[in-house]
């Protein structure tokens, strides 16, 4: 199946890097959506069918933690797997995200090979 993927990051450059990495990962890609913060991400999730969310933590308006909290509270989007892609890695925050059901973490800077592996791990786990 083809996956619809949403990339949420306030850096346009980072979104472009992630988008290119997704293209190289060999994942069957349906649509690729982009959002510049958590609130925009939630808007996309309300509007579109999304199979995987790649989200940063530190973003304006609504950060990644807030976005995941809103997602989990919404039965329409609570089951969508989330992969956090962030330079932030405080153990407390990562544990809090894990407790909320986040499927994976990838620390910036990452290589495209690492992103590929993380996506395969999240998608594999989700579709087992």
């Amino acid at each position, binding site marked *: 199946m083809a996956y619809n993927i949403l990339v949420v990051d306030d850096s346009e450059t980072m979104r472009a890097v992630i988008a*290119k990495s997704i*293209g*190289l*990962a060999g994942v069957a890609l349906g649509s690729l959506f982009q959002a510049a913060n958590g609130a925009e991400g939630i808007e996309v999730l309300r509007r579109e069918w999304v199979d995987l969310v790649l989200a940063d933590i530190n973003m304006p308006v609504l950060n990644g933690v807030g976005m995941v909290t809103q997602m989990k509270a919404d039965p329409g989007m609570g089951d969508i797997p989330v992969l956090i892609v962030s330079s932030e890695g405080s153990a407390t925050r990562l544990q809090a995200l894990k407790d909320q059901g986040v499927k994976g973490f990838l620390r910036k800077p990452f*290589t*495209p*090979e690492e992103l*590929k592996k993380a996506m395969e791990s999240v998608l594999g786990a989700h579709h087992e």
Partner: protein
Amino acid sequence: MNHTVGIAEMKVSADPGDVLATYALGSCVGVSLYDPVGRVGGLIHCMLPLSRIDPAKAEKNPLMYVDTGMSVLLQAMFDQGAQRKSLVAKVAGASRIMDAGGVFNIGERNYTVVRKVLWKNEILIAGEDVGGSVPRTMYLYLDSGRTLLKMAGEEKEL
């Protein structure tokens, strides 16, 4: 047939009987490319990261530098029928030999430029063994694309 790829050299082949080998990769970097569909393979042994430090030398032998060498290797692969989308890239070397203090970081810079060139060309690295302080020998088998590393008596598939 066995072909040796010397320092600042490369070899591209579509003969499934060929094995390409490059010896004594220290801070130099070896990159193998293989197209499993067209069964075209290439191996390069580059010494330094960027050609801009000596454009005259780079013009004489572009294979000495990672940036110009990789361009030549990729073009030679395409000329032999390899497709960019099929290419499997493997990287070895880029160690800190002869630079234990890390003053020049040649190995690390070689590796960074390899990554940049491959990223620009939309090619992921399928296997690598880089850094550290061991010399490596790298083999590419044209029948399968198998890439073998030998270092300090140890063998490793990339």
